[in-house]
């Protein structure tokens, strides 16, 4: 694609994403005015798609940064040409992660309470502190990288900065995981493995997104083709996918082995119950992606690698969604009672058949607002690619 096509293409993209962002914003305002009732979230499922997307984008953000900083911190052969793009991608995802928290809040106008009355014992409070820090650190890191290209600042300071960035990235995932993992009230979540799993999932989704974006940018000519680093990234991604599946396997076998108790019920729901479709796409998709990414033959074919990356990202989204839903699908007290407030949209009481139906499924409104927010991320990315010197230095 020549320059003109890139230019008009990016303008169309910017226009589209800007338009969708405005739509997203207006939906958010409508949601505040009309009420979160427009979502499918109810008292038995107080969180939903927004918080899932929050987890998902925290994962996506850290992945990019880790790929950019790990080679520098440990002196490995990095992915220099794409490291700036990876970091910027991380920044966009972090912004989105923060936005999804805001969109989920009932009283966003009271966010200042988080500073005025902060309760430092709350994992959510930790995240509220860590995410802005992470955003600042990764922005400074990008800024420092750009300055370094202009000869200012030293490699040592860059190395130090990347170490700080790496630590913050690890912290962001662990803290985000602890929001869920520390809750004894939600057996589905209450496992010490959650933080490591969040990190491995972040690596998968972060790298997959970076790889996919790089392939697109190479296709549109923004970047030169670099088959060697692409294959290396593909192999690394394949490895991360397998590690992630391994951790998932550890979790399942531990829960299932007693062949009894609530954990076993949960595993059964994942293997054969209502979670089965998502679960098997995640596992089989992951294995397929890993094969495509690791196999020297297939890893050369950009379309296959791109497809495998998307498959990996989809798998991680399902993992996040299942985690969130799993926390609410199995209430601790299952004695029948009247509605606990608007438990399900008035459309019907399909939640009654807990075994045969989901306690929550995102409403059309939630999907639309989510698209709006993600479009803002796409807008930020496109603008960044357009106006920031993210191309590899000559």
């Amino acid at each position, binding site marked *: 694609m020549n320059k003109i096509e890139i230019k008009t293409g990016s303008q169309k993209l910017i226009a589209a994403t800007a338009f969708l962002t405005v739509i997203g914003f207006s939906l958010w305002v409508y949601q505040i005015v009309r009420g979160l009732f427009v979502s499918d979230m109810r008292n038995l499922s107080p969180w939903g798609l927004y918080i899932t997307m929050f987890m998902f984008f925290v994962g996506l953000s850290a992945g990019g940064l880790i790929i950019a900083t790990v080679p520098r911190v440990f002196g490995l052969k990095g992915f220099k040409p794409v490291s700036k793009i990876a970091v910027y991608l991380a920044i966009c995802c972090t912004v989105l992660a923060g936005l999804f928290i805001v969109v989920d809040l009932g009283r966003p106008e009271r966010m200042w309470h988080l500073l005025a*009355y902060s309760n430092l014992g709350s994992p959510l409070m930790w995240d509220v502190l860590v995410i802005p820090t992470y955003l600042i650190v990764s922005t400074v890191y990008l800024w420092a990288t750009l300055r370094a290209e202009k000869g200012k600042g030293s490699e040592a300071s860059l190395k130090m900065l990347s170490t700080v960035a790496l630590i913050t990235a690890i912290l962001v995932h662990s803290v985000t995981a602890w929001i869920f993992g520390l809750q004894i009230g939600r057996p589905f979540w209450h496992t010490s493995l959650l933080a490591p799993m969040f990190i491995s999932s972040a690596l998968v989704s972060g790298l997959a997104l970076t790889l996919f974006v790089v392939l697109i940018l190479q296709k549109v000519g923004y970047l030169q083709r670099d088959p060697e680093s692409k294959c290396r990234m593909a192999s690394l991604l394949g490895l991360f996918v397998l590690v992630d599946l391994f951790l998932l396997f550890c979790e399942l076998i531990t829960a299932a082995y007693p062949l009894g108790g609530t954990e076993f019920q949960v595993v059964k729901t994942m293997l054969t119950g209502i979670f089965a479709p998502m679960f098997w796409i995640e596992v089989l998709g992951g294995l397929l992606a890993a094969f495509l990414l690791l196999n020297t033959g297939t890893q050369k074919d950009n379309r296959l690698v791109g497809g495998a990356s998307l498959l990996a990202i989809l798998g991680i989204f399902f993992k996040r969604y299942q985690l969130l839903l799993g926390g609410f699908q199995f209430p601790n007290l299952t004695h029948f009672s*009247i*509605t606990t407030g608007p438990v399900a949209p008035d459309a019907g009481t399909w939640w*009654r*058949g807990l075994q045969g139906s989901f306690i929550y499924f995102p409403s059309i409104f939630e999907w639309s607002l989510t698209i709006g927010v993600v479009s803002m991320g796409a807008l930020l990315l496109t603008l960044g690619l357009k106006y920031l010197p993210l191309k590899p230095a000559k």
Partner: protein
Amino acid sequence: MNETQQHSRGRQASRRTFLKTSAAATGAAALAFGTGKPIIHALAADYAAGQVPDREEKIFQAPCYNNCFGHCRLNVHVRDGKVVKTSRAPLPDPRYAALDDDPTVDDSYYRICLRGLSHPQRIYSPTRLKYPMKRAGARGENKWQRISWEEAINTTAEKFTAVQRQYGKTALGIHHGSGNFGTLNGSMPGSLGLLEKTLGATNIDLALDAGYIPGINRVCGFYPGAWNTNEIADIVNSRNIYVWGHNMTVSAIHQWHFVADAMENGAKLTVFDPNFTGIAAKAHRHVSMRPGTDTALIMSMIQVILAEKIYDQDFLLAHTCAPFLVRESDGMYLRMSDMGVPAKEGPIFIYTGKHTVIDPNLVWDTEKNKAVPVDEATAPALEGSFEVRGVKVRTAFDLLRDQVASFDPETSKSITDVAPDVVRAVARDFAKIKPSASLIGMGNQAYDNGPVWGHAIATLHAVTGQIGKSGHALGNPWFMYLGINFGMAAPEAIACIELPELLETGKVKGKVRPPIKALLISQGNPITAWVDQNYWVKTYWPTLDFVVVVDDQMTDTAQMADIVLPKSHWFEHEDILPLGGTHPFIQHGDKAIEPLYESRPDVDIHRLLATKMGFGESYAGSNEDILKQCFETPLTAGYGLTVENVRKYGTLRFQNKGYIAWNDLKFNTQSGRMEFYCDKPVDQAGAPVAPERTKGQRLPTWEQPREASVDNPLFKKYPLVLNSERPRFRVHTQWFNTEWLRELDPEPIIRLNPGDAAKRNIAHGDYVEIYNDRGHAVAKAVLSGGVRPGVMVYPKGWQRYQHKAGSFSELDSRAFDSVGINQSFFDVLAEVRKWNGQV
């Protein structure tokens, strides 16, 4: 604040001082509402314990007038002229404590329920009828046009007078349901009774809850309200409690804590009910039987007791008809009048106002070896055949033993489906454990064989002597009242289920009388409450010239009216509740607020109508005069119950504390004894039973239910017995559209046994259609292991529009037993299938 509120405020102040509450909130902290300062608003107001007035809140007191028989005394809290909540009021009212011989605060009768707490939503219901309306479409089309009170009363008076002129006075029917038991504005013989009497109208009687009455009255004699049983507080002294056909934890929730106390004292609880109900879940033992077969079960229990000779011989000989001699020829008792000593007139029986008859029964004195009047016998024979002046006679006890002989537990199992060892166990317990009690609901009388069941249960008590002492109960204190002025009544009454016979033949029980051509309906919702709804709506209603309904919601019945008049809510007018229901207190009800919109109390409507129809003089007096006229009778005077007293003390007991029924063991039968053998059985209306049925009604006799029985050929087509159950979240249809309650109870359901449902591949939550030849109803299926196979149960009281199609009230039959003359709500067969969506 207008005059009446000022008046009540004045009285309120005097009452308040008496209630010893601190006059005003002291030290109430600044109530910083919504000033954005994020602190919870501290409220400091120090009041004495109990419900105390808040800020400028006033507390009035009134009973909850409807007929769940709880008749709770409620505090009605009024703030800024609005009823903001209700709460439990002391019952008895503390002021009464000064009269009571034991002034210690006994809160066992303090009571309220979820419905009573929802009054604010009924008073300020958005669908409350606000002004008189006349029909603007066909009956049932629910199209209305607002009219003035003047036009409404004029039209009604004109139409009613025309009907009475054309067909006769009694062509005007007045039907009252059970919606409000007040004297002025309710259905107890009070202002409405005065109107019926004044207009010479016909009272269309509810004809329900009465199936067992002919049976129980044969054995124990007439008693107003059927059950004369111990004050419920006495049940704590019982050792062995049997609950028959009674969903107590739903239909009499305020009885339960007394039973729970008894159980904590060691009493054993057994529940007799086809279904596993709430009360069965609390019981030590649940006996499930095929619906409508309890009489056979009780006869089987009596068979065991007689066979194992564990009956109470002394009681039988001293207080029952057991030793009475019966002529083998015609089954009549051998009385002194048969021996040439003419019967004499006894004293007037207070409940009927008629003279009693003294004609002593003869017994066989084993010492004197001859028949003697019962009072002269020293050693009456319990068993044996004898001959007196050539007349062959046998003791009533012998006849009873023969009657139950074929009901040994093994044989009776084929009828009742109750295991023989269970029958023996419950029989022995009831004979041996003293005191035993039977708390009885309306389940058993809801089949055509209600009368014989009443006869059987009373006989069981007679045979075991379980009556007349603390810890006993025969019945349920549903209608513990004496404040009823039977004089305030229509000249003629007809049971609602006899209307079809009158329509078709112009006669009732063979007696010619004018047809019913106009109806005034108040405190009732017959289109939902009566059996066989389609008959009334499609066949009967078109024959009526004019129908007026007085209500405060657009009920099924109001929709079938030509004119609807808005009545005021119970706390918008003063009244006296002349009965206690399940507690022994008569109550005064304050007027807490003014009637809303253009609604009026029933008594004012009666006055307007009577005056317009030319009978103003009977309502010339004030409401106070009418209240005195209706409430103050020789009966109530005897208990010191005057309007003045009841208003002054709020609540007054009409029974001495710890009332024990029949404690003198003097029964209201002719002989003064429990007559389980009744040679001249009468029907519900007191008329002699038809000759061909007399023989079958003298002793407890097993009769199959009319429809709901396996022997009915209809059983093949409709194999499921359809029962209703009391709705927790309504009293019949009242509260039907109170939103708070609808959140707990959103839509009609039908409870199915999972096995029966599976046979029809009905899953939990499916919408199903219950149907038979009379009609259908659609409801959501609830699969429950509590429902006996072969039975379906629906909570009653839904209005038609709340069903997706049809109504439960279409399904029951208007056939009735000639002795019981009672609506048999459970004597119904039906089938159920997945609903195909057709309305």
